[in-house]
């Protein structure tokens, strides 16, 4: 690298693109303007030959480098590339013997993400220290042991990751955790919640999944209050089931507690995106109280049973006008289980009857759910439903399509006999059926 202060010869762009971030530079443009500041990572969507410089005022400016521009380096290379820096871990409270503690399993997602200045997007945190730097009050009411399990956005999680998580939850209870909190991306949080609901039995404490719709590097992040509520519930609630805790409204003072099998992300961006479908949420909480709308499953004396077996070759197909039977048949080929998200009461166009009949005959467990999400499927109201029933389609009452998909994976992990699988599918295992749907109520 050239000596400090001396102009860098030739095309400044060639030097700049290789220069570590964090260097103090000055660019003298061909028309006589001088830009002085710190070189910061360019935005993903920046134009060609554009560098980003952070001025002393704090503003970043994009400067297009002309071959005639001249570059000066105003400081020595320090080896600290300035790619965001690393937080120092806050001092941890040590767990005293016998003091109840909460396990926090971090999987990535917005709740454990920060702005990435290389890509311009948000990226998951890398370690426990970085996570704790966002949530300095985490251990206010007692110890929390953080275990980073994944550092992935939730759209990148797959069923085998649910198995890993189930084992980690089991291990945490085995080590004596009072409750377990899973910090998770919100996109597929409901899938994971359903999977854990089926995989974990005889729970001695709460398993609380929590996420954030705004990343914690923002002063307004909902992750802070959501996580605090989740940890509080995990520490104090005498329940033995898998729940999701997120904002109950747009305000930061009330949190809904959803059953893991009945919850769905219903909005792309709002803080209160998560809703229980087909009935009230399990309960809600604020800073002082926890209120149950329906009785939660009480905590078992333990030990927790982890059955992480999952089947494979399961599909979820959204039926829509114009879907060709050939395409649908190709999708369902070789599947051991298929969830259909049908229209209305659980219908498909009659053009699909032939391949569905054939698939069921070949042993594909085929489950009908409703695209409407709210309300239950019913094969007896219209002729189409009766035809599908006769074809061997399993009508799954008010099971949500995603929950049905997860449950089918789980059921196929326990049995390969379609009749046994069908029986498991219709048995209420984790509060996944509501049974009755009320005219009104607190959703």
């Amino acid at each position, binding site marked *: 690298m050239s000596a400090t202060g001396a102009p860098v010869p030739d095309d400044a762009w060639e030097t700049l693109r290789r220069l570590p971030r964090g260097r103090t530079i000055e660019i003298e443009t061909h028309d006589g303007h001088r830009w002085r500041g710190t070189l910061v990572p360019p935005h993903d969507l920046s134009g060609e030959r554009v560098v980003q410089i952070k001025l002393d005022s704090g503003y970043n400016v994009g400067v297009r480098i002309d071959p005639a521009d001249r570059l000066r380096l105003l400081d020595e290379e320090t080896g600290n590339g300035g790619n965001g820096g690393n937080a120092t871990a806050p001092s941890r409270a040590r767990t005293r013997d016998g003091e109840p503690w909460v396990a926090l399993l971090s999987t990535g997602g917005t709740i454990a993400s920060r702005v*990435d200045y290389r890509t311009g997007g948000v990226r998951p945190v890398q370690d426990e220290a970085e996570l704790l730097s966002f949530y300095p009050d985490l251990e206010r009411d007692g110890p929390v042991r953080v275990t980073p399990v994944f550092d992935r956005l939730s759209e990148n999680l797959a069923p085998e990751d649910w198995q890993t998580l189930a084992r980690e939850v089991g291990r945490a209870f085995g080590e004596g955790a009072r409750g377990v909190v899973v910090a998770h991306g919100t996109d597929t949080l409901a899938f994971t919640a359903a999977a854990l609901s089926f995989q974990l039995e005889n729970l001695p404490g709460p398993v609380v999944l929590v996420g954030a719709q705004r990343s914690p590097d923002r*002063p307004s992040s909902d992750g802070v209050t959501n996580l605090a509520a989740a940890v509080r519930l995990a520490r104090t609630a005498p329940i033995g089931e898998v729940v999701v805790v997120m904002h109950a409204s747009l305000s930061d003072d009330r949190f809904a507690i959803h059953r893991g099998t009945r919850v769905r992300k219903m909005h792309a961006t709002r803080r209160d995106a998560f809703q229980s479908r087909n009935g009230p949420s399990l309960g809600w909480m604020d800073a002082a109280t926890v209120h149950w709308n329906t009785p939660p499953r009480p905590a078992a004396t333990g030990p927790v049973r982890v059955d992480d077996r999952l089947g494979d070759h399961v599909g979820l197909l959204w039926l829509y006008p114009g879907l060709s039977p050939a395409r649908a048949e190709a999708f369902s080929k070789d599947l051991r289980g298929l969830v259909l998200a049908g229209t209305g009461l659980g219908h498909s166009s009659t053009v699909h009857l032939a391949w569905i009949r054939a698939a069921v005959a070949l042993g594909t467990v085929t489950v009908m759910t409703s695209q409407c999400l709210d309300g239950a499927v019913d094969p007896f109201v219209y002729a189409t439903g009766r035809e599908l029933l006769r074809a061997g389609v399993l009508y799954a009452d008010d099971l949500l399509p995603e929950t049905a998909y997860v449950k089918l994976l789980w059921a196929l992990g326990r049995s390969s006999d379609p009749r046994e699988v069908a029986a498991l599918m219709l048995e209420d295992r984790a509060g996944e059926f509501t049974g009755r749907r009320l005219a009104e109520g607190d959703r």
Partner: protein
Amino acid sequence: MKSGLEVHQQLATGKLFCNCPAELSEEVRGRVLRRLRATGGENHAIDPAAAFQASRDLRFVYEVVPSSCLVELDEEPPHGLSKAALDVALVMAQLLHARVLDEIEVMRKIVVDGSNTAGFQRTALVAVDGHLEVRGHTISIPTVCLEEDAARKTGETAGEVTYRLDRLGIPLIEIATGPEITSGAEAREVAEEIGMLLRTTGRVRRGIGTIREDVNVSTEGGARVEIKGVQELRLLERYAELEERRQRFLLDLREKLRSRGARPPSGPGQDVAPALTGPGKGFLFEAARRGHPVLGLVLPGFRGLLRELDASGERLGRELADYARAAGLRGLVHSDELPGYGLEGDRLQALEQALGTGPEDAFVLVTAPEVATAARALAGVSARAAAALVGVPGETREPLPDGRTRYTRPLPGRDRMYPETDVPPVRVDPGHLRELSASLPPRPEVVRERLADRYHLNPEVARQLQRRGAVETFESLVGRGHAAALVARVYTQDLPTAEADLTAPVELAPALLEEVLGSVAEGRIAKEGIASVLRELLLGAPTTVAAIERAGLGGGPVSDLDTLAERVVAANEALVRERGDEAFSPLMGDLMREVRGRRDGQEVAKALRKALASRRAPSGG
């Protein structure tokens, strides 16, 4: 003194990052409660101003109105930067001869006082290195920025602040000048000149609060102090001048403190509530009785200097109290205002003993229900006292209606800014820039020439119309048949006279102004009555008729001016006999008082001359 300005002008283009209209609203449709905390920027450092604001741990209530959507609530990512608003900024950049950036990057400026739901304000640097000529003096324009306005504060109680979302997201152009302004008067002129230039774009919002100024003042040996949110140009001068005086006062005080060997306070202070037990009047005793902490801190060598009063109304005691207030307390008690608050005689001695103050030492006392709150306030006061030994602390200050200012928070630094990654950077297309520059609005001097030419206005009168932002209304009123000279007079003489007594600025609707002009045309009032009618309208008269009545100009026109003139002359016969034609002036005054603005002065003079002449004629014949 060196002073710089930041002029913030709202644009009438719709909001900067969503499709909401840029309109204020009184229709509150819902409320949302939020909390904010300080977060670090790219390098994890937390800005001192942000940390300070977050330390107050407030609850924020946001009022949802029709002119807001999920974006204002921080429930949806920002949409792309408004092209219409950016175009106005690009036009301004060119009018200011500034260099437009190749690529514009939207930044987040951390602000956790609740005025932005996200906890940051979005802002983008658009152009740099411009300049402006103001009466032959070149003022540099280092930056032109485009940013979103903050939410509007509509209420505040202990621990909770209410904001309305209508103003949040309205585009603001921020134009900063270099520190080349040398007087308050010049600051005002520069602000007016920038305001004029902004209005030529035709895309700015009008009315009270749509243009706001920040004043940065530094003095030789002092520090940079930012006075934020001055809404009245006429007070700009006073803020800048009082700030200069305050800084000089603080520098003098520093010398006095140093010469006495004063030292910075040490330690976190101590709870003296035990020394305040038993009977005693005043809020400190009351606090101690309730079991609240009363924290005391010794200021070594400060005795007597806390109450020293400056011509600008400043004293160090007030500065210290402002720091306690900024931390959420109502104020503090300092030893230079004792005896008082029930602290005298033995009680005072006991207290001083508990604190261990020497004869040269001062002390301060603060109290709050929570120890943490009181301790935080005392830490601020301690730091401010220590800064008195160094000189003038750099601060953000809030303008008060009387021209003074008050400490609000530390100056923010570069750590408050980090990139807004939800909005892609905007490349400025050179072709588009050329198109805009080919159709720039006429510069103010060109408009002035046109006004002078077309309406035969004096150039200074034309300039005054521009400063008031009245060119458009002026031309429309003249276009509807009102005499140019009369309309210009209303703007340059009558309105300023009418506004002189107002305590807060009031905007007069053009329709009302036209009604007043109509009253003159119909002979209901004379030109001389315009100012007092306008004054009544500004003070709240609901209609022009009511304003005429309140101004005492009711009772219709004076129809028989001649008779009135004859009566006045007759009543002063002796004077007329004695002084002849020289009696005209005193009698004119009497007659004008009788007429009270209902008739034109020239007509009154004519009638008086006629009456005087007729009086002399018989006696002379």
